[in-house]
């Protein structure tokens, strides 16, 4: 055996630290994940599949798809617009704007739901007006969509802003000098430069949109078959001691989480491999 380099720990320390890491992560991360699938299949494949025949579950899946289907595109457009303004221009109040974009991440999910109840609820600002016009936002689908939009605001923007800031404006300026229009520059130069970060932001945004619990729970009213999203349906089934069905529905969300993690890892490899700019391959800004 050779001498240990001066910047490495003794072998027993390394073994100890690796063991602590694996034990800690095993207990805290792997066990819950495995438990979801074990509990879901506790009574066999038949019982697992039967859980999805429940009309309330199907309606919850439809509502979750609808909420994510609105929240993700809306926040994609917002993320692109905000990142363009923040990363490509200098203006007073810029750091305030970036802080505000992150705000929904800092707010408790319950508070995120509450603020919409205070605006649109029966005793809220617009409550009387909405009631007079026979419109319902809280305890109805629009409230769920709004709460989902709110909690997913930051995801696309915060992936794009640092990358676009790092890339600077030279590529776009070159394109404009070469006669491209503003829209062409954005589509042909900016978008390809940020495509992987954009995809990553969309994946994270979607995961949160489909998995949000606290904010949606406050505005939902838990009307079975009408205003329950998939996570809320999991809660209802669990509280009814219908554990197999609860974990079966939860396993859908767990699979979504695994797909999200896989996509994230894949995108990170692509980012590491891809050149930072379509013009300057391999050159680091």
């Amino acid at each position, binding site marked *: 055996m050779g001498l240990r380099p001066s910047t490495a720990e003794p072998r027993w320390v390394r073994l100890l630290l690796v063991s602590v890491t694996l034990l800690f992560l095993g207990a805290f991360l792997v066990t819950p994940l495995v*438990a979801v699938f074990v509990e879901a299949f506790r009574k066999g494949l038949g019982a697992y599949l039967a859980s999805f025949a429940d009309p309330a579950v199907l309606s919850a899946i439809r509502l979750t798809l609808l909420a994510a289907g609105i929240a993700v595109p809306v926040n994609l457009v917002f993320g692109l617009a905000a990142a363009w303004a923040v990363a490509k221009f200098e203006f007073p109040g810029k750091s305030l704007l970036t802080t505000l974009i992150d*705000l929904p*991440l800092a707010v408790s999910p*319950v508070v995120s739901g509450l603020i919409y109840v*205070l605006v649109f609820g029966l005793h809220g600002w617009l409550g009387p007006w909405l009631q007079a016009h026979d419109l319902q936002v809280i305890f109805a689908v629009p409230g769920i969509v709004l709460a989902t939009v709110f909690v997913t605001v930051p995801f696309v923007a915060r992936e794009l802003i640092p990358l676009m800031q790092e890339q600077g404006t030279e590529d776009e300026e070159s394109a404009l000098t070469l006669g491209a229009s503003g829209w062409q520059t954005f589509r042909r130069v900016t978008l390809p430069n940020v495509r992987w970060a954009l995809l990553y932001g969309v994946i994270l945004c979607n995961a949160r949109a489909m998995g949000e619990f606290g904010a949606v729970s406050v505005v939902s009213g838990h009307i079975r078959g009408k205003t329950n999203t998939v996570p*809320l349906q999991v*809660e209802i089934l669990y509280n009814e001691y219908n554990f197999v069905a609860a974990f079966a529905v939860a396993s859908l969300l767990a699979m979504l989480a*695994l797909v999200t993690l896989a996509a994230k890892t894949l995108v990170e490899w692509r980012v590491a491999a891809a050149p930072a700019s379509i013009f300057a391959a391999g050159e680091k800004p």
Partner: protein
Amino acid sequence: MRWPRRRHSVLPGFGLTLGFAVVYLSLVALIPMAALFLRSRGLGWGGFWETVTTPRVLAACRLSFGAALIAATINAVFGFVVAWTLTRYRFFGRRLVDALIDLPFALPTAVSGIALTTIYAPTGWLGRALEPLGIKAVFSPLGVVIALTFIGLPFVVRTLQPALEDLEVEVEEAAASLGARRRQTFRRVILPAVAPALLTGFALAFARALGEYGSVVFISGNLPGKTEIAPLLIVTQLEQYDYEGATAIAVLLLVVSFVMLLVINALQRWSGGRHARGA
């Protein structure tokens, strides 16, 4: 040749994109938040103070802050070990383990909640081992700490990893060649260099834990005054149409969130702003 940054860029679309971003953010986030503060003004200072100092609210806040603090501390210690192991050592399955770190971000909180409850219940895989020791993990404050540790872990690890990767081996070699033992190098060279990132991760985990709801409500049992966290108390009061009570606690939580956001921003500037990750 690089020009000094001009105030007026040749790029188009500034007014359009900034205008859209500001209007959108105002409609979706700022105006509803203003509603919260305006609503709480109806209480007045006296009413606000009275609402947030009832024994039930105080107990909930004590539990939320205490459990969040303990969980963030556990994460700071074990998160450091995990981040260190993942950046410094090569072992079988390292990349898989690295990808798994983000699981608490990706797994919906309700799913984490029911899974943790099942595992730590007296009949569960880990609860069975704790029960003979007289440790009650479910429906107790310990359960709250467990759930908050789960959701806070990625914040510490993901903030520390880039900081540890950026450490230059030369500095450690210099320390060693000047006669420092490995332990001394760690304490005097490595730890001070990553301290800002460690603190940032701690603050992020703490802030997230304070407001956490979904993963906690299943495992805590929600006994008023004992295992009831502040966000749950908001929901309870809302269900009883006590809008004023709910608003007062929400304002309290929101103000703490703002303060944490400022603290985290300051910490990130201190650490050079480059090690700031965490969703």
